[in-house]
């Protein structure tokens, strides 16, 4: 029984982390340009070249 008392809050906490992450993605404008972001990942960014 005690395990439920531990697991339940833990699961809720993990879900809250997920919700927080979702809130962050929304705030930082990551849904503003889904088409552009899908294309950008294919581009060779000059900053990413191996040293």
């Amino acid at each position, binding site marked *: *029984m005690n395990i*439920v008392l531990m697991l*339940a809050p833990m*699961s*809720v906490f993990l*879900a*809250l982390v*997920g*919700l927080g992450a*979702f*809130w962050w993605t*929304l705030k930082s404008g990551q*849904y*503003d*340009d*889904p*088409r*552009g972001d899908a*294309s*950008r990942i*294919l*581009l060779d960014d000059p900053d990413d070249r191996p040293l």
Partner: protein
Amino acid sequence: MALTYDLAGADLSGFLRPREDGAQTLELLVKGIHCAGCLVTIEREAGALPGVSQARMNLTTGKLVVTFAGGGGDPAAVIQALERSGYTATPFDPGQAAADHDREGRRLVMALGVAAFGAGNAMMFSVPLWAGLFGQELGPATRVLMQWLSAIIGAPCAVYAGMPFFESAWRSLRAGRANMDVPISIGVILTLAISFVETLLHGRDAYFDAAVTLLFLLLIGRWLDHQLRVRARSAAADLLALQAPSAVVVGADGRERHMPLSEVAVGDRLVVRPGERIPVDARVLSGASDLDNAMLTGETRPVPVEAGEICRAGALNLSGALRLEALARSEDSAVAAIARLVEAGAQSKSLYVRLADKAAAVYVPVVHSAAALTFVCGWLLGLGPREALLRAVAVLIITCPCALGLAVPAVQIAASSRLFRRGVLVKSGAALERLAEIEHVVFDKTGVLTEGRPQLLDAAPSAVAMAAPLARASAHPLARALAAEAGPGPSASEVLEVAGQGIEGVIDGRRVRLGRAAFVGAPAGSAGETELWFGFEGEAKTRFSFSDRLRPDAAQAVAALRRRGLTVEILSGDLAGPVAEAAATVGVDAWRAGLTPAEKAAALDDLRAQGRKALMVGDGLNDAAALAKAHAAMAPGTALEASQNAADLVFSGDQLSAVVEAVDVARAARARALENFGFAALYNAVAAPAAMLGLINPFVAALAMSGSSLVVTLNALRMHVAGTKT
């Protein structure tokens, strides 16, 4: 009409927006982007320009934001750089409304996220209850614990996610009406309240998970509806940006600057080149030209203007460059009177009751009396107050209009995405509902039934060939039409264009003139038709007459509308002759010509007074008031800003059959929505009595709710294939 900027020396700094840190940003609408490659090219080209600190392209909205560090940016340089790479860019004024709208969208998405979180987690604690584990492995104490955990997570999430519905319901109640959000709000609040009571009393019926899940499903419908409006609005804004509401203002230092229309002040000196529109009411300082007032009055014959005369905003400058003095601000121009008529029409339209609210008006009283009846009868028949109340609440919960909330938005989003692919832009869901109800169609002539461009009437090919070399040298629309008829060939030499009069040149060593009768030296002809005269010096003169050509499928579209049981009428501001001819060609008996904007609006009022629901299709400023008064309104993409604003739907392309298809899709959407309502009624007819008799447990309720939402959504998706027959 896309604007081509004459960029040599053009100053577009009026479009720069200052930022708090001293930098400036410029927003551009870029056309012709297809892939990641374009994205890189654009950002590299724009980013490499002097003074540019950042260039960020948004592929979804097609907008490029350029930041100039330290200010003093040159928008023209950016546009030119993009043009060299093969992309057309137009300055874009984002405005406040778009930003507010975006905030609402984010709030809905956040509510959706919270509801998803709440539904998933509250559900976790309900699974043991549904699986019937209590009484076997788990005792009552565990059940109460589970219910409390469910309450702690579910209730705050439900309150947050339900806010959009509660607010809307409250607004509606304060206005003395009941919309669909009222039963939704009552259902959710009662579900939460009864669940708390049950949990406190150690009962079985706690539905925190159901309340949040319900809101999650409803928010999907709400978000779809929101997306529909956002997409339509941004597409409409893009269309307007391409019409470039800007004016060329000459500063005190003689420099020409492009300014947003709203910043033109009374007394400003303006330059309007051939092919551009008069931006505000103005007096001609110098220059002479012909003005095309078709958008203002529907009249296709060009009107000559010269120094000292007044020209009105919206007229198209045809032949010569004009220097003007602004007599009014943009908001106070002749357009403003029409705008007031439009506003009056829009107000009458806002009284329209949407389908879902009509359903709610019937649904709400029925459901609430059923619940009250359950309580009273249950108590009288000896159930006891607690059990009677529980059953009454069960009725309210089970009939909570989840399917009804999804029924209309799901259909409308499917319908408008179908029309969007066809090039028809739907501005709101209510517009589709109104369009489905129409029984009469009113067409404007110029620019709607016709293409709005002059076309050469039957002329001798030899005469056309003779005049063509001179016509090719001119930019006047009539000369262009003549040159187009003749095809490619040589141009005349020593060409001299006399603004507002005509063009003179040399062909085969002989002096020749093309233009007005007086300029060419011919007797003044009939005033009714648009004409050009042509002749060699000292010889007989030839007359070319022009008229506006009908859209190729105009007659076909009118016939198709007739087959759908609609009556068709033409209301035009043009002269009787051309209107009668167009009406005869497309096969319409009912037509009126020479109407002023107010008379057109009055004609639509008469139709309304007779109880006939009319669709108005028009493009000009003279149609704007009529468009706003009509039960439903459509405008072509070439229409003026005011008309596009007044219209419910905007169609692009040359095909008038877009009107027919829009009517078909709107009718199909209405049929699907009614089917959905029918299904929801059937569901309630079965579920409500079951709840009254106490036969519904949480598991059945959850299944029934999700099942009904699924059926409604699938039925909406049928829209994608509806109305494909012509």
